[in-house]
């Protein structure tokens, strides 16, 4: 693996499988009386969150703590950032405090890449703007493997606000690496420019795609990023691109429904779908901790050597 995890494209097939296999072993920790490993004792992980998050921040925090790392939570509110400190100065401050890894979320796409040039430690992208969210893609792939036994050859349909979604981009890249076939379904206004260059298919007709899907991943409609009319009304969006019980009934028998959270019940996903047995939404959260432990272990667990050695 590289020193940083900035994009799902940083991971080749072997790296991605190593993360998933490692996460699978670490997931067993949840059944033990002591849910903690000493591996990252004395290492410091900084959660640098310039954007609101509950799930991802607590997930990374728990992951780092379960590996015995020291965790510093830093959010833009109530820090010197609100006094006008730049990303670079914030980074250098954290560096001076000896951060071994910085987990960063930022509203600007590319912020983690910039950060990676300024600090010596590892940088983990926990979501940058509308660009990428690689650990979410990893935990989604992990969840698919757990439920369906494999990722390779699966038909995965990603539905909704692709334009503003970092989850969609990371998932398309990672799932392609792992050999799944991805179809994006969205209104034309919510597809990014250049989507034809992505390694996936695009459709505008959800009803036609759902019956052929092993996995349907619903994306949140990100109203906070929408400055303009992307669709006429929420009701119309929901009717054409939302997953309700009627559409869910056309899914193949063992197909699953995923959502990265937070959900807008009644907009992109109906409540009865979110609470159905097909829904993996709660599992995704639990798996997030295991996958993030695996990422932190693989980035920080070794010395400076990057090669994966077999135990002697």
């Amino acid at each position, binding site marked *: 693996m590289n020193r940083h995890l900035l994009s799902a494209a940083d991971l080749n097939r072997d790296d991605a499988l190593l993360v998933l296999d490692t996460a699978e072993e670490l997931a067993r920790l949840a059944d*033990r009386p002591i849910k903690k*490993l000493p591996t990252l004792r004395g290492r410091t992980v900084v959660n640098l969150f310039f954007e609101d998050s509950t799930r991802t921040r607590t997930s990374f925090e728990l992951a780092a703590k379960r590996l015995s790392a020291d965790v510093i939570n830093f959010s833009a509110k109530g820090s010197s950032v609100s006094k006008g400190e730049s990303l670079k100065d914030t980074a250098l401050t954290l560096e001076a405090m000896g951060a071994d890894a910085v987990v960063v979320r930022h509203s600007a796409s590319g912020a983690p890449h910039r950060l990676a040039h300024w600090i010596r430690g590892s940088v983990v992208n926990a979501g940058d703007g509308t660009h990428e969210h690689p650990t979410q893609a990893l935990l989604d792939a992990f969840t698919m493997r757990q439920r369906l036994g494999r990722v390779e050859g699966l038909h995965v349909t990603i539905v909704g606000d692709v334009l503003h979604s970092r989850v969609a981009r990371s998932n398309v890249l990672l799932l392609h690496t792992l050999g799944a076939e991805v179809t994006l379904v969205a209104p034309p206004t919510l597809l990014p420019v250049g989507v034809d260059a992505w390694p996936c298919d695009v459709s505008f007709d959800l009803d036609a795609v759902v019956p052929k899907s092993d996995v349907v991943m619903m994306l949140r409609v990100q109203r906070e990023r929408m400055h303009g009319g992307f669709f006429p009304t929420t009701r119309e969006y929901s009717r054409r691109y939302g997953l309700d019980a009627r559409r869910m009934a056309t899914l193949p028998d063992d197909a699953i429904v995923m959502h990265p959270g937070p959900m807008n019940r009644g907009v992109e996903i109906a409540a009865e779908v979110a609470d159905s047995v097909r829904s993996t939404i709660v599992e995704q959260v639990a798996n997030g901790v295991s996958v993030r432990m695996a990422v932190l272990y693989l980035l920080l667990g070794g010395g400076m050597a990057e090669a*994966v050695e077999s135990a002697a």
Partner: protein
Amino acid sequence: MSSARPRPVSGDPAAARPVLDAPDVGRALTRIAHEIVERNHGADDVVLLGIPTRGVTLARRIAQRVEGIEGRPVRTGSLDVTMYRDDLRMRGVRPLEETDIPAAGIDDSVVVLVDDVLFSGRTVRAALDAMGDLGRPRAVQLAVLVDRGHRELPIRADYVGKNIPTSLRETVHVLLDEIDGRDSVLLGPAEEAR
């Protein structure tokens, strides 16, 4: 991950000299099985925990033999110690192996750790730490196929298949049928400093 995933043997096995052949390995394991039963007055409380990769295979074989002696199955599992090693920071990151603890847990049982080669003792130390997070066995014992000496910690084995005096420049390879296609213990010239 499959615990039986083959790990390449380092060095050149062709240049190495066999010190135990297949029947020797079998006899050593049979003797260890008898010793475990004798010392623990049966095997009801015994849990055999193999340290991946080859320790797991050896634990299963010893379990079969103990079952043959006692007439009932022995609890068997595997214990990955990677996350507890003291040399993680000195070496590259390693993939994890399988940890599989019997459903009844290890509290109040007699855990017999099983590994292929006992060398510095650091792996066993890591295993003792790992076990501390899993439960509290009544006692912990150690079974190894080969004790090659050169301990760096105050650790000794309770059951030893064969003591093989070695120099630090030599390597010991344990080959097992399930993983390597044949049973043998090879003593070879060192290829690199450990």
